[in-house]
């Protein structure tokens, strides 16, 4: 293999990986975006991701239909997120601490209930062949798209429109920007936030289904390691704009695909370092975008993270 074709292969693999690895990031960051727009931060989406990946796999395995699995993943995610929402509605309960607790609980429940699911195979989410125009097998492989990905793109557009142009979007943003204003207009801030967190958990759950039912496409205990948390940082990077979440998710997907892509062309050195790339990239982006002097531009004003 010549040197230049090797690097082309890596580039194509990273581009394809951006979509493959980025799809869960997209869903989790959209879910987190909705939650944070309502004024709460849900670090527990990491737990949601693991639990919903397990639930999605179980649903697909038991019913034979991957789409029922996806639905079950969403519902499981919504339930765990609702627990976060309800707990945070209690007085003196901090949303960051609750998120850490749900990270532990979600992972524990998923590992416990998912123990029998480690061996079997489940029906996978179908892939869309968008690369058939090319005769290069690498390009075809890169453009074999997860069927959930277009759904995620549509969802991002829908959320962007709903948040800016609908009554419901305004209520969510009002709860996140000024709980006093929301209360003055007669809306229960807690109810709005619990609902936003629950729906956010459902959306993040779809990302979990994408993990266990498309890529990597099986259930094991190392399935999610921090993707849910990266998504929280992604939302900050995307300045709480759903469409920017799409771009950020693809960027991070590409970074996450770099390690496996290099390994596939025989560069095994630093495999673990390349796997840690997304975390380092996230931290660098946080260092670059944050400032101690001012709160972040576009941040919901009631959010603890932007203090």
């Amino acid at each position: 293999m010549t040197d230049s074709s090797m690097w082309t292969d890596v580039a194509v693999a990273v581009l394809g990986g951006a979509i493959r690895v980025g799809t869960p990031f997209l869903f989790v960051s959209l879910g987190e975006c909705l939650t944070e727009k309502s004024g709460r931060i849900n670090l527990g989406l990491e737990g949601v991701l693991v639990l919903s990946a397990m639930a999605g796999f179980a649903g697909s395995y038991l019913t034979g239909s991957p789409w029922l699995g996806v639905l079950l993943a969403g519902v499981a995610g919504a339930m765990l997120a609702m627990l976060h929402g309800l707990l945070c509605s209690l007085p003196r309960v901090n949303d960051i601490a609750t998120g850490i607790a749900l990270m532990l609980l979600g992972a524990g429940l998923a590992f416990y209930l998912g123990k029998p699911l480690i061996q079997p195979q489940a029906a996978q989410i179908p892939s869309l062949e968008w690369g058939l125009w090319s005769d290069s097998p690498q390009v075809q492989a890169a453009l074999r798209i997860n069927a959930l990905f277009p759904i995620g793109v549509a969802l991002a557009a829908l959320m962007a429109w709903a948040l800016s142009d609908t009554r419901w979007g305004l209520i969510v943003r009002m709860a996140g920007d000024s709980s006093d204003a929301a209360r003055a207009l007669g809306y229960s801030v807690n109810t709005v936030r619990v609902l936003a967190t629950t729906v956010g958990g459902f959306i993040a759950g779809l990302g979990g289904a994408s993990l266990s039912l498309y890529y990597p496409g099986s259930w094991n205990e190392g399935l999610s390691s921090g993707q849910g948390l990266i998504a929280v940082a992604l939302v900050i990077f995307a300045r709480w704009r759903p469409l920017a979440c799409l771009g950020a998710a693809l960027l991070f997907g590409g970074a996450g695909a770099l390690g496996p892509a290099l390994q596939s062309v025989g560069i095994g050195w630093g495999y673990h370092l390349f796997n840690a790339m997304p975390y380092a990239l996230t931290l660098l982006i946080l260092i670059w975008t944050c400032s101690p002097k001012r709160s972040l531009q576009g941040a919901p004003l009631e959010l603890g993270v932007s203090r």
Partner: protein
Amino acid sequence: MAVAPNPTPPAVAVSSTPGTPRVPVWPEVVDAIGLPVLALAGAVLLFGGFVWLGGVDPVETWVLLFQGAFGDAFSWQNTLQRAAPLMLTALCVALPQRAGLMVIGGEGALVLGGLACAALPLMMPLPAGAAGTALALLAAALMGAAWIALAGVLRQYRGVNETIGSLLMSYMAIGLFKHAVEGPLRDPASLNKPSTLPLPEGNLLGLLPGMEVHWGLVWGVVACVLSALWLFGSTHGFATRVVGGNARAARLVGLPSHRLIITACALGGACAGLAGGIEVAAVHTAANASLIVGLGYTGILVSFVARHNPVAIVPVAVLFGGFGSAGSLLQRRLDLPDASVMVLQGFAFVLILAAEAGRGKLSAWQQARVAQQTAGPVATAPHETSRMRLARERAERLATRLAEAARRHAA
């Protein structure tokens, strides 16, 4: 200047003066101890119900949970062995929390501390015996301190949220660790499980006399006691708590809040790094993947249950060490998955946080009762009324303006 004699009023007079209601302190004690105990009991109950849904006898589970943790000398030793690192990783949460930061990346400091401890003999020959062990553990503590202090620096100087930042850093630390252990520092003789070269035999951390528990337990308890002395018995610790309580007030009285916060982070990180060093020097003898078992994450839970109080961390760490030790018994006897301890911990964490909502209910009720007894029915307001809120907001605005004036004055 005339010095007016100002005799301290006799204590008896205060307590016997009619009309000054004395609110007893016992409700606060009940809150501090009773609520966590209640929450933990609830978690154990809930766990029983959870395994019952899976067709396992809950009573047998509870019995085994107790036996595996505290049933006999063997379980006790296992429990204490597991409790030692938990005390140290819990301090990595508790100390920064007292300075107002929620750091949850102790796992990263622990892993890198373990690596530093194992890597030191490769860089310099260690003196034999305890001096060498102390040097290796010092390297571990320094590594951990630097790692968590970095999270504090990023927070103070760049505004990077320390919770997210420290957690991202711990994933990076695990990546670095795996890279070092499977690459440059790998012992060629470790075939199936990549490890570093084992520490020299003479530098391993030994067992306490008469017990199957290593010296790490003593290090853990000593670290907790020293932390408590520092926090509650020294000016520096007091200043740290002021910064954690109200950063703006601390700046107003001229406390170097950046330095205090970063010091607290470094101390916490040193504890977590030490935990990693002890695990290597006493249990695994070399740095390998066995170090990454979530001790840092369990430490978060321990610190929360102990309400970030270093002294309370000791018994709570023993309790959670007990859960860990019972986990393997549950796995052997009842064929429960190894994640059952995680489920139990998850329930405990959620209930501990929920119990926070009940705090103060008892003392508010007590206050109202005392006020009623002494002064007849009066309007006691345990909650803020709208008028109180207006007054408070006015005072806060005033404080802001004062702070601005002070800053302008200083410039």
